[in-house]
């Protein structure tokens, strides 16, 4: 039950993108069309879950016993970069079309602050292995949901007649703000 609460809490109440404001770069960059946003969500989910797991193992089996916690950020970045490289190889093999669509944003998952953020939050909240896994998966799912919702909204906006002052990025930013307000409505639910 605790895990379920943690999961729902991470997906909706403490949504990584709209409440904690991490990972805004792909939110603006890859949300132009729905299928690319979905693919990006999937790829990030894969990376986030794996890196949450791997960073917990590194933290508790390597850094803490050897008292080298000062290497935390460095080693987490190393492990995230490796997981992203691995994901890119897999995506390239399994879906060349998605690989082409995501383009430079796939390797840029490395610098997605949500991924490093989740790994560091896991340490700060002193989560256990299963809890970090649930937290990582929840964050990733929250990220994917927001990506898909936002891409859908932007596809509608592309069809609408927007005043010239707001056309393009401004209206997207306003939309992201409104979406964030909606997600703030979940606060206090758990």
């Amino acid at each position, binding site marked *: 039950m605790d895990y379920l609460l943690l999961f729902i809490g991470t997906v909706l109440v403490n949504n990584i993108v709209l409440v904690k404001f991490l990972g805004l770069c792909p939110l603006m960059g890859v949300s132009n069309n729905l299928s690319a946003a979905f693919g990006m969500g999937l790829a990030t989910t894969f990376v986030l879950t794996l890196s949450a797991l791997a960073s917990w193992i590194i933290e508790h089996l*390597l850094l803490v016993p050897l008292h080298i916690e000062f290497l935390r950020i460095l080693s987490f970045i190393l492990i995230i970069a*490796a997981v992203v490289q691995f994901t890119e*190889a897999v995506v390239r*093999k399994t879906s060349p079309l998605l690989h082409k669509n995501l383009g430079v944003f796939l390797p840029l998952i490395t610098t997605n602050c949500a991924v490093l953020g989740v790994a560091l939050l896991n340490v700060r909240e002193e989560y256990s292995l299963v809890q970090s896994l649930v937290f990582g998966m929840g964050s990733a799912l929250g990220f994917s949901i927001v990506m898909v919702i936002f891409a859908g909204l932007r596809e509608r906006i592309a069809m609408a007649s927007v005043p010239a002052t707001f056309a393009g990025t401004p209206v997207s930013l306003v939309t992201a703000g409104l979406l964030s307000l909606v997600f703030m409505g979940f606060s206090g639910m758990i």
Partner: protein
Amino acid sequence: MFVATLVLTALGLLLGWLLGLAARVFAVEENPIVNEVEALLPGTQCGQCGFPGCSAAAEAMVEGNAAVNCCPPGGRALTESLAELLNIDLNSLGDAPVPQLATIDETLCTGCTKCYKACPTDAIVGATRQIHAVISKACTGCSKCKDVCPEDCISLNPEPLTLNTWHWTKPEAA
């Protein structure tokens, strides 16, 4: 300090080894000839050959699904180098589509800059409310400018004959 150095080195080596392994397992077989052909093509993705872009056309050419002379912007020079690369007899090919060049009717052009923004090869020069002109050396005849021109003042014409474009006509069948 030695512990930290050792740990990071070991971590880097281990991850590098795993990635090398993954690169081998998930290797994508790419035909090197396709990349060579694609490098020869103009790369403006104009779609005049009937394929969605130059990379798709290159793949089709290597597989033999497209004739090497199907690229109008490339013209005769491209056909010759492709035929040499893919070892195809030039005489076996049918008539090639003639390369086209865009020309702007200066009496109708209003200088709206729409064509100039649409041009994938930057072959149109001009500025707002100035009459635009086409640099014929850079034009690939992709007709993208023709589609966006609100005055309908752009026309596509066959390239004028020069020493580089002229070739012997085929002998008439008896």
